[in-house]
């Protein structure tokens, strides 16, 4: 029964950590609109955490620049298990228009396993909420598999 209660908690209270790895701020603003009154993802329990130690879902936006690569890997290592990585926008998938730049070392799946990837430049807030809901499902299966 205790296990079931914890699973319920994991389903209802996923905390997000947002990492910007050289994004143009477009996706960041869409993410902000997800957690502010218009879309209010807090009603599903989503909350922005200040530090990687508190996070369950890591949201990455932007092509991985060479400056942010090392920081990204170090931050991801600090997140306690179970954790899920979600990429927002086209940049972490394919580097988008920044592909081939001398300072871009993406895409994201070179450095970690990406569980959910939300497409769009930038994706709509509805799409982000949908992706986060899928991420919660993956979080639950990861907790069960442990």
């Amino acid at each position: 029964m205790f296990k079931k209660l914890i699973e319920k908690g994991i389903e209802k209270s996923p905390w997000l950590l947002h990492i910007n790895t050289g994004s143009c701020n477009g996706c960041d603003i869409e993410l902000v609109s997800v957690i502010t009154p218009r879309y209010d993802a807090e009603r599903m329990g989503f909350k922005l955490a200040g530090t990687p130690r508190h996070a369950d879902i890591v949201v990455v936006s932007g092509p991985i620049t060479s400056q942010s690569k090392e920081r990204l890997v170090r931050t991801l290592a600090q997140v306690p298990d179970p954790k899920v990585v979600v990429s927002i926008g086209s940049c972490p998938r394919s580097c988008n228009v920044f592909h081939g730049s001398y300072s871009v070392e993406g895409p994201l799946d070179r450095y970690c396993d990406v569980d959910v990837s939300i497409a769009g430049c930038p994706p709509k807030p509805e799409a982000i909420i949908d992706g986060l809901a899928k991420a919660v499902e993956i979080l639950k299966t990861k907790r069960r598999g442990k």
Partner: protein
Amino acid sequence: MNNILQFLFYILIFPGFAFCVVAGLLIAGIDRKLVARMQKRIGPPILQPTYDFLKLLGKETIIPRHAARKVYLAAPVVGLLSLVTVSLFIPIFNFSIFDKPVADLIVIIYLLTIPGVALIIGGSASGSPYAGVGISREMVAILSYELPLVIVLLTIGRKVGMALDGNITFSLKAIVDYQAQYGPMIAQWSMIPAAIALLLVIPCKVGSLPFDIAEAEIEICEGPLVEYSGPPLGIFKLNHAIKMFIMTSLFVTLFLSGAGTNFVALNVLIQFALAVVVTFISISVLKAITARLRVEQTFKFYWTYPTALALLSLVLVWLGL
């Protein structure tokens, strides 16, 4: 034997651990819902803090390499224990677990400081620079709210003591008896400034928005909690919720109490409902309409307005009004 069982019941279930946890998590949830409704959001379900706590129990605990392991893990538990102890001393209308006066307001002042100190010790044991900034801010917060809090409690002690024997009393039972006889303390006009001062102290004590300088998420990543994860973080969040209930319940006992009804369960319900109202006035409204103050602004605010209000009440009471 029977006596021991009874005390175990008091400590573990009511009005101790289990009751505190349930009431605290409920009050924290109601507060989040109220703030959300005031910001025109739907808001999280009322059980949201409970879900957060359960989730944190199921997460991995990471202990940083530079942390002092034992202190780091013990600090949240010490805070929780002291809060549960406070809840044993606060009478709920005419219900109190001690017949004789064993503990008074002075013990409560000391015990209520311990969660803040536990936060400081836990943060400094984690060895993070963000926690260093956070604990220095927490110390400033404790310095700022302690002064008006002590003056308010002194005022109440003087008011009740004058009616009893012309002296000062700090017995909580005497305070409740006084209110049963003369009506709630807030009905005395000379006590209204003290009540406002205590309402202003509560948000800083529980670390909610205009005064959450120690746990500023955006500036210093929740300060002392920056390295905590998993169950210890969950216990810190639980401390936060219980502190909210204890402080509002203490306000109800000091200012809105009285004879109550003959049924303990009904009394508890009334106490909880009044605590929710106090939470709404002093925590939720302030949280919804203000932004975070800077460290020195908090300090200046508490040593001017709430202190002045509390002193005004103290002078009025000393003059016999």
